[in-house]
């Protein structure tokens, strides 16, 4: 049988790195093919080449056995290649049907298009009201819009880039049903992910990338997750070890009935959020992104301030105190956005260590002690195994995972009483993730109160002592991890559960 897509020795170079090094793979009609690899392994670059958003430096692309050049996404779409990006490219202020109409070729006939959207949605189990405005849709619904937009063009090959990172476990399962239906009708699917369980559940074959090269291929259903992980990382991932926790009696961080108004019309208002975090424990907040996490974080860090009594550190009301004053009271924070918020891209690691480390005796009489700053930065690099050329490396030159190690390392080096971390291992490779998780656990067992906000449920269950769920600005009660499970938390993430009944 002729292959639908074949890549032969596709190579793409960037200054300083080779993103794809002679990558070859084949996808048959109706095959669900996983492209597996850690962040930075070259998966996204490869998919952009297939979709025409990037051009390979060398190598061939064969489509139905025919060699051709895919010069742009428009060309790709005409061939029948559709792509659902991880970060959606939709307009917030117009309706579903209008969003789709601008993206596809053909006459601008909204009613006809709306009818087709409804029909396709029905056929594939992707129900969306074509006339709803986009900003009313949840993230999962937006993904449906993206998929429908591709389906309307009758694709022969659909590329999905980490599609489940924005979904609850239940929503992910229904997405898999859709993909299986499509495959059964003959559409090929390229499925990019680093989540091994998903790939074993869904995919017929897998190509594993590491550092831009193909390091192996497998039939996912015939191998274990551990075997896949070993292929992907090159070594068995270290296990995380967690002692039982013995939290202090008095909370170190308290949120007391925090309700907020959002300045951003599309932001989320927090509604009566309450939470306690004690020294010695890690509390996790699960939730699909965009449910109020970033708002909550800004209110906790002090980037937004309000009534004093709503946030407490130890026995003190701090809701009206700004960032610097809260930090002076032992609060540390590692944000989700690393470049531009957690670190200044064009500054060196030494200068970035100073960003929040200036209270560690690095500044005397208003003047910076260069030697001490360098020492502090070097200590972070050594302790947390940050791979870089040294303290003079610019923050932007580090890979996402290494920069995250540096930022989390910096915040931990402040010996915080309370540490807040958002998406601690987002985009971080497996070995570094395990290391960061272990570091968080160790810090908490030495007495710090730690709050972790993450979209990865597995991660939260691995490190947290208690877990709460945020949904549309409301926070469920934190439950001991031992007393709940992924299913239950997944339902809460979808807003189903007693905690959110008042909201509905």
């Amino acid at each position, binding site marked *: 049988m002729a292959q639908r897509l074949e890549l032969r020795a596709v190579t793409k170079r960037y*200054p*300083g790195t080779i993103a794809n090094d002679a990558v070859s793979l084949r996808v048959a009609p109706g095959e669900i093919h996983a492209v597996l690899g850690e962040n930075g392994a070259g998966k996204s670059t490869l998919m952009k080449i297939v979709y025409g958003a990037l051009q390979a430096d060398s190598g061939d692309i064969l489509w139905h056995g025919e060699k051709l050049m895919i010069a742009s996404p428009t060309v790709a779409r005409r061939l029948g290649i559709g792509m659902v990006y991880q970060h959606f490219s939709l307009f917030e202020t117009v309706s579903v049907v209008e969003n789709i109409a601008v993206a596809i070729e053909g006459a601008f006939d909204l009613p006809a298009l709306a009818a087709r959207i409804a029909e396709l949605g029905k056929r594939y189990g992707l129900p969306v009201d074509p006339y709803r405005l986009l900003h009313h849709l949840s993230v999962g619904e937006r993904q449906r819009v993206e998929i429908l937009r591709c389906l309307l063009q009758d694709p022969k090959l659909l590329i999905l880039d980490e599609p489940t990172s924005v979904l609850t476990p239940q929503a992910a399962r229904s997405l898999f049903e859709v993909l299986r239906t499509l495959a059964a009708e003959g559409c090929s699917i390229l499925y990019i992910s680093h989540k091994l369980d998903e790939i074993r559940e869904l995919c017929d074959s897998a190509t594993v990338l590491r550092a831009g090269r193909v390091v192996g291929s497998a039939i996912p259903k015939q191998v274990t997750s551990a075997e896949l992980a070993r292929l992907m990382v090159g070594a068995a991932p270290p296990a995380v070890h967690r002692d039982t926790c013995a939290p202090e009696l008095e909370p170190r961080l308290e949120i007391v009935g925090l309700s907020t108004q959002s300045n951003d019309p599309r932001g989320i208002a927090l509604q009566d959020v309450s939470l306690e975090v004690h020294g010695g424990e890690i509390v996790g907040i699960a939730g699909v992104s965009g449910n109020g996490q970033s708002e909550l974080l800004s209110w906790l*860090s*002090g*980037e937004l301030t309000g009534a004093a009594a709503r946030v407490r550190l130890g026995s003190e009301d701090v809701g009206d105190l*700004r*960032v*610097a*004053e*809260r*930090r002076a009271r032992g609060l540390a*924070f590692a*944000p989700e*956005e690393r470049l*531009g*918020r*957690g*670190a*200044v*891209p*064009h*500054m060196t690691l030494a*200068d970035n260590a*100073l*960003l*929040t480390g*200036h209270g560690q005796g690095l*500044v005397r009489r*208003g*003047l*910076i002690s*260069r030697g001490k700053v360098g020492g502090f930065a070097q200590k972070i690099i050594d302790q947390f195994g940050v791979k870089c050329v040294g303290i003079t490396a*610019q923050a932007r*030159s580090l890979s996402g995972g290494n920069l995250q190690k540096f930022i989390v390392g910096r915040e931990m080096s402040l010996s915080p009483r309370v540490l807040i971390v958002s998406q601690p291992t987002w985009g971080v490779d497996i070995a570094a993730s395990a290391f960061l998780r272990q570091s968080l656990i160790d810090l908490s067992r030495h007495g710090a109160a730690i709050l972790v906000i993450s979209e990865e449920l597995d991660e939260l269950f691995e490190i947290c002592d208690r877990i709460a769920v945020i949904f549309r600005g409301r926070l469920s009660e934190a439950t001991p991890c031992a007393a709940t499970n992924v299913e239950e938390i997944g339902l809460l993430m979808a807003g189903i559960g007693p905690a959110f009944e008042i909201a509905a």
Partner: protein
Amino acid sequence: MIRIQLEPRAEPVRFMRLGAPILALVLTVIVSAPFLLALGLNPISTLRIFFIEPLSSPNGISEWLLKASPLILIALGLTVGFRASVWNIGAEGMYTIGAICAAWLALHFGSAGHVWLLPAMMLFGALGGMAWAAIPAFLKTKANTNEILVSLMLNYVAALILSYLVNGPMQDPDGQNYPQTASFDPTAMFSPLFDGMRLNGSIFITIAAVAATWLFLERSFIGYKLTVSGAAPTAAGYAGFRQSRLIWLSLMVSGASAGLAGMMEAAGPLGQLTPVISPGYGFAAIIVAFVGRLSPIGVVFGGLLLSLLYLGGEAVQMSLNVPASLARSFQGMLLFFLLAADVLILHRVRIVRR
């Protein structure tokens, strides 16, 4: 098909950091050659008169430093603001108000001949510039106005205030109705360093300011905060550096330096106020700050270069009878090429054949 592509470099190159200003200067010279030929001039000898002649006598050197001094001083203040992405275009107005405040003191207390008069004038000059800078600072921090527009427009307000004062309240009563103030008493002026030359002691203020700005920007924690808030405002907010304070600080520093420069000019070569007291120092200093790559040491070289362009422009006007706009087109071209050459620091040019 051949395409020219710009690719971002992994690291900025040190070599280009130095090379870009030199490249810009060379391109300015090359591009201006046809203009000179069109004017019927020999480019080589014109460029010699432009760049070499002015520096060939002790008096020439004195004039060179005299003009470079206010440019450097103003540019130092602007550099502080530009590092923080506070785009103050109003140095010309701050300079003017500084000169007016200092002149008021000189005219009222000049005859008393006190030793504190000159230091007090320096203080007034700086305060005048700061007061003028407080307007955009206040409006930006309270009403989120754009400091570029506000500070730019205030330049014209300041110029008109000066024009009103020298035609009215501050006009010299014995001046045969010329629009100018009385000449300052010698005690209200910097004395020349060398006989027969105009270079005066105020140059030491600029030298001290270079050292102070270097310490402030490169070694002080506040300077670091400013740089962070300019480079990554979100990171500054995350670290707890208060944006509004840094905006105030930037504008106060640039206001003080521009006001002081205005005072130095009034109490130096001018010795009185006239309707025009600046050959565009406040604007040229913006070029100086960028030519100097927003570094205090670089600003010194930038100031010397721009000062030479002023002198060279005058020299060719006098000896070759060419229009005054020649010097200005030189300035403009230089800035243009400098900004263009900047791209090469962060990018490399690649020619792609496909």
